[in-house]
């Protein structure tokens, strides 16, 4: 059986990759995918803990997160499409007219 720590480390790595993706990538879709990666790393952590505690409640939580993430994905895609319609680009750095 794979020890808990392996999952946690993998989760942390995925989370970091996701966070760095948001910061380094310029494409809105890619940034959004990176956020999804972060959410899923949290999911993985949850599942690992749920198995450790031998509970289902952690897994139920993951269900909810997945649904929420799906809704978020839908809204996010819609917003990105609207952006594309307005500006003909999905480059995040080009949608930066609001600033100080």
């Amino acid at each position: 059986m794979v020890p808990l720590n392996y999952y946690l480390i993998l989760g942390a790595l995925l989370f970091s990759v996701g966070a760095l993706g948001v910061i380094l990538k310029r494409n809105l879709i890619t940034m959004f995918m990176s956020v999804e990666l972060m959410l899923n790393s949290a999911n993985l952590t949850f599942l690992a803990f749920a198995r450790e505690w031998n509970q289902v409640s952690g897994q139920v939580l993951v269900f909810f997160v997945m649904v929420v993430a799906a809704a978020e994905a839908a809204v996010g895609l819609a917003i990105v499409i609207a952006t594309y319609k307005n500006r003909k680009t999905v480059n995040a750095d080009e949608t930066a007219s609001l600033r100080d």
Partner: protein
Amino acid sequence: MFIFVALLLPVVALLAGRLLRPQMGHDTKLRPYECGVEPETDARERYSVRYYIIAILFVIFDVETIFLFPWAVIYDKLALFGFIEMLVFLGILIFGYIYVWKKGALEWV
């Protein structure tokens, strides 16, 4: 030990394939396969925005169904109450479906 085997295996397999297969690359063979029809444009073109809308709607309705699995597993325990609960849940989904339909999001313009 195991990790070495695991790392070695794909390398060996790919190398073996490369060495053993016949080298007969020509133009037709490298072309994307479109059921025998000559491809007209580059495959990496932009999709119609319609696909995205369908995709968005699909994602939502698809993922909602994961709630059906745990429900089905313990359906016997939940009995009538569970049945009504699931009806409410599906009812809300169907409301959403009606909304989408009436809004014309399912039309292919």
